[in-house]
């Protein structure tokens, strides 16, 4: 099957490739363990779930901010793996989708049979501050010295601008946060365990205007992983699996926008749906990258669930709860479950695999067949640079 | 009774120890603040006294305290050797290291012009003044110091230096007086309380700086920045003034002591 995307070149479908064995190592606020430990736990559980031996893993995609001097290569020796195919995807919240893209092609082309896509980060008491100050050269030169508000300050500016441009209100963003909290209440390892009301959201402590406490994720330690392999292999292992209908990724999109009000998805949305062969209306659940609710709103718009600038109306039309209309971030998302570093971009993927294969941790989305997962990451200077998305479908 | 030179010397020592011979310290303490001679700024300048700690029971030297100091040969209470001045540059044994050490001990005549100096900072020591002094106190002997008491050492530094926009205003000898002391009285040297042996306006005399010119030209010595001259009798004090033995030194800060009979 071939497609002709907007740029005229053909996109090959991911025929015969599936994702399975979703793994989440329960998050903790602070960990005295290392990223190596978290990644090791995730791979251990992955092989257990898949019923394979560690040495069967012949492909690995690793994402982490906190492995220190160790790259993915170093990690193979640390963990005793001998993969014939290895990738390191340091793309923050876009790493999950982009790791999936890399892994799917490797499996499809026979370069590897079992590709483990894993992300894990620890969270030491002072590691968040250190990560912020040395996140990137632009962050070091041109962001961190300005109040050191971290991503909160950067996204506050994006949020402020979005509100100014399109008339979205704090209450709109609040509705998303409240819905996600509802979803998280059935997830045992979510950082946030108490119900959130809109009133509490509105009255929360200001962080960086207009962002308040519940607009911000809580950094934590944790790990996520899933396996990419051929559909027949998954079937022979008895693993429930999902197919990959379409993917996109984009970096440094719209560099001339003075301030970010759309993400890279908007550049590729047409091809995204064309390749998938389904429409936005067909989607049963959406797992967005929710570092801040404004970015969720951009994803609603840029992935075609509503028009640019109509995010607030879209929000007002739906409940976004797992059992309501337009189930969204059914794991609670990072806003309620926590942001386990680079694993934040994998959280939606493992959740979607579970929902599509009928093995959710929390509440199920009834009869979920099609899911869209999107990722977003790497605020380098004034905006997130990397975006990606995938349409996933229940196999068979 | 024949005197025994050895026991005379020991007797002297005993008298010093007992206080029947009094030791008067004629020396100013060497401090950073003490004025030094001021020349026009384009000339080389005499370095004032400066003290730099080497260590003081600290990481630079845990159990000891000591300093380095820098100072000109001509700062504080100091001695002028004949080589200091152009008129004495070719004399034999004219530097502090080659002067016969016997010359560091000599009697003193103390000429009191403190009242005149108090009345007039530009007081000039003249031959008639000296002759009048001799009439009262006796002739100035050959090989003896003449020390000029002005009580200048008691003044605050600004008055002590006496700097005005036309130079220093401090008492001192006129050329004829110095010439007279050297040629008619064959004195050992000339000492003052002021910054120099010369009058504050001495550069306008002919020759300029006569105390330097005539004294050093004839191999005589200078002492300046003396203090406590008011504790000396007009005659009878013996001065100990041994400069540091600096190779070809033109002078040196030194400790000047006067021995006087206790009253």
């Amino acid at each position, binding site marked *: 099957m071939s497609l002709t995307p907007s740029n005229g070149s053909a996109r090959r479908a991911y025929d015969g490739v599936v994702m399975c064995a979703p793994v989440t190592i329960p998050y903790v606020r602070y960990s005295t363990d290392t990223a190596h430990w978290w990644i090791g736990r995730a791979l251990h559980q992955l092989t257990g779930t898949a019923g394979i031996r560690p040495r069967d893993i012949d492909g690995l995609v690793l994402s982490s901010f906190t492995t220190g001097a160790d790259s993915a290569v170093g990690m193979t020796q640390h963990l005793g793996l001998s993969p014939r195919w290895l990738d390191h995807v340091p793309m923050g919240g876009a790493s999950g989708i982009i790791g999936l893209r890399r892994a799917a092609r490797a499996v499809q082309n026979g370069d590897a049979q079992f590709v483990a896509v894993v992300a894990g980060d620890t969270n030491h008491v002072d590691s*968040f*501050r250190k990560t*912020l*100050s040395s996140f990137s*050269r*632009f962050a*070091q*030169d*041109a*962001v*961190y*010295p*300005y*109040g*050191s*508000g*971290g991503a*909160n*300050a*950067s996204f*506050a*500016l*994006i949020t*402020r*601008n979005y509100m*100014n441009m399109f008339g979205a209100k704090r209450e709109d963003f609040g509705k998303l946060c409240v819905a996600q909290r509802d979803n998280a209440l059935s997830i045992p390892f979510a950082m946030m365990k108490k119900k959130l009301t809109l009133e509490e959201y509105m009255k929360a*402590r*200001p*962080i*960086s*205007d*207009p*962002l308040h406490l519940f607009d911000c994720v809580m950094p934590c330690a944790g790990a996520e992983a899933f396996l990419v392999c051929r559909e027949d292999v998954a079937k022979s292992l008895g693993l429930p699996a999902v197919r990959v209908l379409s993917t996109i990724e984009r970096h440094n999109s719209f*560099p001339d926008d*003075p*301030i970010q009000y759309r993400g890279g998805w908007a550049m590729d949305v047409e091809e995204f749906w064309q390749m998938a062969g389904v429409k936005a209306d067909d989607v049963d659940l959406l797992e967005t990258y929710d570092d801040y609710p404004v970015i969720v709103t951009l994803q609603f718009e840029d992935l075609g669930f509503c028009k640019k600038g109509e995010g607030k109306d879209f929000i007002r039309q739906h409940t976004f709860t797992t059992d309501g209309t337009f189930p969204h971030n059914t794991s609670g998302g990072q806003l309620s479950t926590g942001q386990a570093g680079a694993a934040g971009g994998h959280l939606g993927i493992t959740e979607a695999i579970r929902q599509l294969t009928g093995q959710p941790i929390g509440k199920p989305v009834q009869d979920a067949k099609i899911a869209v997962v999107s990722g977003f990451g790497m605020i380098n*200077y*004034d905006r997130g640079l990397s975006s990606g998305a995938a349409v996933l479908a229940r196999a068979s | 009774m024949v005197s025994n030179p050895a026991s005379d010397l020991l007797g002297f020592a005993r008298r010093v120890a007992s206080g029947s011979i009094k030791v008067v310290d004629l020396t100013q303490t060497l401090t*950073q*603040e003490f*004025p030094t001679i*001021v020349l026009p700024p*384009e000339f*080389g*300048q005499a*370095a*004032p006294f*400066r*003290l*730099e*700690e080497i260590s003081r029971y600290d990481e630079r030297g845990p159990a000891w305290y000591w300093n380095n100091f820098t100072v000109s040969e001509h700062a504080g209470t100091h001695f002028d050797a004949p080589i200091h001045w152009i008129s004495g540059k070719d004399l034999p044994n004219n530097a502090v290291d080659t002067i016969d050490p016997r010359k560091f001990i000599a009697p003193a005549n103390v000429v009191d012009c403190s009242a005149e100096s108090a009345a007039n900072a530009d007081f000039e020591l003249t031959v008639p003044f000296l002759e009048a002094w001799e009439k009262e106190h006796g002739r100035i002997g050959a090989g003896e110091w003449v020390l000029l008491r002005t009580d200048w050492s008691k003044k*605050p*530094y*600004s008055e*002590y*230096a006496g*700097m*005005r*926009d036309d130079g220093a205003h401090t008492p001192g000898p006129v050329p004829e007086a110095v010439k007279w002391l050297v040629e008619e009285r064959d004195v050992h040297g000339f000492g003052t309380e002021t910054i120099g042996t010369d009058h504050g306006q001495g550069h306008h005399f002919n020759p300029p700086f006569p105390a330097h010119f005539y004294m050093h030209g004839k191999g005589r010595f200078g002492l300046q920045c003396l203090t406590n001259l008011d504790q000396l009798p007009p005659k009878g004090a013996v001065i100990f003034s041994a400069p540091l033995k600096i190779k070809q030194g033109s002078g040196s800060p030194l400790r000047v002591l006067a021995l006087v009979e206790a009253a």
Partner: protein
Amino acid sequence: MTEPLKRPKRKDPLKRTQQPLYPQSVRSRTAHGLTKAAAEGRFELQTCDDCSTVFYPPRDACPNCLSDRVPFRPVDDNGKLIADTTIRTSTDPYFRERTPWRVGLTKLDAGPVILSHLHGDVLEGQRVRLALKLDKGGAPVMIALPEKDTPNMADDPHLREMTCDPKFRRVLITDGRTPVGQAMAKAFSDAGANIVFVGIADPWKPFPGQDELKKIERVEIVALDVTDSESVTEQAEQNGGRIDIVINTAEHIRAGGIMQRHGVTVAREEMDVRYFGLMRLAQAFGPAMRGRGADGVNSATAFVNLLSVHALMNWPQYGAYSAAEAASLSAAQCLRAELRSGGVRVMNVFFGPLDTEWFQTVPPPKVTPAALAKAVVQALQHGLEDVFVGDIAEDIRARLAANPKALERELAG
């Protein structure tokens, strides 16, 4: 509108002095192009020599055409503040104790969008001027200022973190015997300093201007001789704990090259005043200043060295003097590194020949002591680090940047 700064109350002696902190000051090598511009008070951004694109943050290739010919050049500093935020929680200890802290994004007319600190008088949606400043850690930062000057704008607390305004501060001028020292005393008194201590060495030696100096408001004459360690230590013991700005005016200017010096007596004096003098001042006053870098409105803020521009390249006509100036400059650079942790700026002011007696035979253009003093006050008000005063100084700076070898040869005559 900025609330005018109030004269600080006397300090509560039972209160702990706030310890100095400073924002993260690590920068990439390329970003130090901003450090240079900020240090000298210019607004410069990288501008592509090939396609004229102006861009930011600093990069090593043009984001439009990938050219690597991307020098920092002066650019239009006007733009519009398109979004602002008030940071209320910060991970950095420096900002943490200064929140709320506003930052915002400005779209410059020249092209790039710049995240900057905000002056209190700028509002979202308004036209602004961006300025490059050095922050408390000596690192270059942008701040958006009102398009047109507003009343008391220098008193803005965020801006004042980036400047060394003498207003309400206590200043020590190390040598008041010279015309330059006296001009400084006048200028700092006029600039609103709380006390202007003026050091006088050898008080028994009268000097021109003495009476006028004593009449200047808020001038207090103190004993200080930079060539005397004891004198410097004693002065620091008396007043070091309340001196916020040191202006080292001690000078030793004599014509002549090093062969003409005929021995090292004068050269030693030059070094004693200019090199050891600085060292004595640094040792005596530096530690207390470094400890008081965050001590409220009148924190210790700057150590100013007045330097001949020939510290940067020897002028053989005043060759030995130039050498001593170079030694002083080098020591000042070291002092800058040492005081940086206290948020205390070392400002080097490079001047061309002065219109004073020691440059009597040098033809104009020359810098009058009053002009030099005015430049120093303004540079502190702007928070500069390297200041060039007068046409000769500017000329030397430009020639040094263009071709140091040519400058060396040409100064040799």
